[in-house]
């Protein structure tokens, strides 16, 4: 499955982060990748995941708005097309 994870941008998404959401996204991304999913992590540029199978797409507060708009539109247009993400987990709970 092709999975997009939209992390919080308050802190870098990595194991030794100080944010709970960022830590959760970091572990979720690496565990889903280990289970064979194609994971795309939208997070700050200084984020780091030990699993190379996770592709980090750097975003900032401004570009994240466009990313979210694009995702919601693409969901509405066609959810099953291969080029689209099959699953989007937005975990930016606090903001």
């Amino acid at each position, binding site marked *: *499955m092709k999975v997009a994870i939209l992390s919080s941008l308050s802190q870098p998404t990595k*194991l030794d982060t100080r944010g709970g959401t960022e830590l959760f996204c970091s572990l979720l991304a690496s*565990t889903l990748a280990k289970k064979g999913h194609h994971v795309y992590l939208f997070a700050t540029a200084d984020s780091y995941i030990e699993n190379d199978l996770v592709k980090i797409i750097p975003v900032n507060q401004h570009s994240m708005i466009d990313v979210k708009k694009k995702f919601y539109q693409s969901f509405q247009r066609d959810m099953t097309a291969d080029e689209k993400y099959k699953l989007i987990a937005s975990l930016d709970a606090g903001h």
Partner: protein
Amino acid sequence: MGGGENEEAISLEEKAAEIQIKKRIEENKLSDHVTMIGQVPHDTILPAYYRNSDLFILASRYEPFGLTTMEAMACGTIPIVSSVAGSREIIVDGLNGFIVDTHDRKALAKTIATVLTDTKLNKKVADNAAFTIKEHYSWDKNCREIPCSLQKTPLN
């Protein structure tokens, strides 16, 4: 408490809050009773702090979830969490932890005192807290169920 060791990651607001807390500790002559441990490595040292603590208190006035609650529970530390914290959802009050009204500081103090003195209750709640995480919130289980749950969620 958790997180990395990068001092640069601390914002100016946090630094100011830390100074204010230290000042209040000194003003109330509590320096012998309060230790500010700062940030410690998450995977290696933090679990030891949790295991050596009788209680984990999340007294936030704003808290989207509070992953620390689950970390503490996983280590068998009794959680007392604020009623606004998202992590209250995994706590059954009195069974695997305690939930107190965010603004009722006296109730918080009373709950702390009760839990610390009632060793029978203490042991039961600590065991239940660890069991809750092991049974229902393991990473493996979460990562199996999250994709399934989200796929079933209607999007429009």
